[in-house]
């Protein structure tokens, strides 16, 4: 089998998407902003301790879908979903579900690093603190910063304002901040798009480390990044319906190796070979 000259991960990933150990099961998910259906009929599964990448052209709804997993879309007035997202067989959008509880288990890292204008220490301690944890804060902070590969760079300046860090460091701080709450899943919304290549490499290496413990979903514009880091890839695109309205759609969801070597859909092939998007 001829391989393209990108490093592909995941020889240990089972061959069929059905055989993964699902953390999330997305069933016929549609996302609405008011009356506008932004994303239509998405079905996918997110495997435990895997990295799932979501790629596609701008406006295809990949970030919208990502924000459904921790119910961040709830913050937008008028946003609602149809279909189901099961988190360990629990309906994330069930009546009794508290979005706050959801977000404690499913962390998120944003496109632009958004540390709080506070000391580095307080940034990491913030999550545990709002969740009512008071004991052993020092060790929680140190552990999170270690895991985010930032400890050595900041251990002597924990009291400094987080905004004094470089962009790449700020993003790793945001990852540390998410880890400190001990989530099971980390959602990453284009985490490297505001970073230079060296900082990007660091975050990608870090994702490989985090994969040992966490389930990661990453939205990225960078196909090489998806190919480098992810086990599975979901390719989204936007269709224009008869009325001229754009709707995001999941075109193909498969192991990353397959998506990048023998995609089953023509549109995926066109996108990854750079013929469109």
């Amino acid at each position: 089998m001829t391989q393209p000259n990108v490093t592909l991960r995941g020889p240990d990933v089972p061959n069929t998407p059905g055989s993964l150990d699902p953390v999330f099961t997305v069933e016929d998910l549609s996302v609405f902003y008011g009356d506008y259906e932004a994303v239509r009929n998405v079905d996918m599964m997110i495997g435990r301790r895997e990295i799932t990448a979501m790629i596609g052209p701008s406006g295809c709804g990949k970030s919208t879908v990502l924000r459904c997993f921790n119910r961040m879309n709830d913050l937008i007035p008028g946003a609602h979903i149809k279909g189901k997202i099961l988190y360990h067989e629990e309906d994330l959008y069930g009546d009794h579900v508290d979005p706050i509880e959801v977000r404690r288990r499913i962390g998120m890292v944003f496109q632009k690093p958004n540390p709080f204008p506070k000391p580095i220490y307080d940034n990491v301690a913030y999550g545990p603190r709002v969740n009512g944890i008071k004991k052993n804060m020092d060790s929680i902070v140190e552990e999170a910063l270690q895991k985010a590969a930032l400890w050595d760079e900041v251990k002597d300046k924990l009291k400094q304002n987080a905004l004094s860090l470089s962009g790449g460091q700020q993003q790793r701080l945001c990852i540390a901040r998410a880890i400190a709450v001990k989530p099971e899943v980390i959602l990453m919304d284009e985490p490297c798009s505001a970073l230079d290549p060296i900082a990007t490499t660091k975050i990608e290496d870090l994702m490989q480390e985090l994969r040992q413990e966490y389930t990661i979903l990453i939205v990225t514009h960078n196909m090489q990044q998806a190919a480098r880091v992810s086990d599975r890839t979901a390719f989204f695109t936007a269709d224009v319906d008869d009325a001229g309205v754009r709707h995001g759609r999941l075109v193909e969801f498969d192991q990353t190796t397959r998506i990048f070597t023998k995609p089953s859909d023509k549109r995926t092939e066109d996108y990854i070979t750079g013929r469109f998007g």
Partner: protein
Amino acid sequence: MAILSTPRSQVDLVGKGRPLREHLFRIALLSSLAIALIFLALLLAYTLTEGWPRLDSRLWENFPSVRRPETAGVLSGITGTLWIIGLTALMALPTGVLAAIYLEEYADNTRWYNRLIELNIANLAAVPSIVYGILGLGIIARWLDFGFTVMTGAVTISLLVLPIVIISAREAIRAVPPSIREGSLALGATQWQTIYRQVLPASIPGIATGSILALSRAIGEAAPFLMLGAATLVRFNPDGVWSSFTVLPLQIYNLISQSREEFHILAAAAIVVLLAILLLMNSLAIWLRNRYQKRW
């Protein structure tokens, strides 16, 4: 060596002279600014020279008198103003900030009633202060029977500055980037935790600045107090919120209305005191703004 495709002799970067209009426009801008500044300076200079002979401790150590201008002062006006402003700050600031938090963080502005509220706050900020005086007189002094006391004055002035406090607090809260709120909520913080621990600390410098400016506007108000019928010849300091009182602008108004020249000098000196309090508060606002300015 032909590095430049254009022959060297043809490269001409010497300016052709900017069009006259550019200069005229600049001059127009500068003169507009100059008008404002020159008149302010003139006003200050005039008041200062006018009031200079009486700008001494007699002014802030004595109570007003209509008989002896040489020993008359405005002590009760100064203390009355401070009482009113202090009490107003206590009442209007928390209320205004909480209202602003509701409007910015909770209100769904696609709802018609929230938009109606917003529109009306902007309208309220434009209502003339004398109207608040009528309101204070009719409702607070008479109907609620608070009488002509510090409390009545402070409640009236609180209502007057409340819309301004709300508007400036909203601006300050809106200036906190949404990414900070998202970051906090994504960590499992509740909405209140996010507001209390992130949004408010980040917006406090802006809120403080706006509030101080709103209060300094209130310091200069005479109209509502005229309506409230606050006495001018108060020969004691307020000893509580139910005490009668007077304020500096009212004293100044009263002094100017006297026929004897000595009282006019006294009025000018009292204006200087009022301006000094105002400048002090405004500098505090500027200091706060610069000291706690946020970089994102």
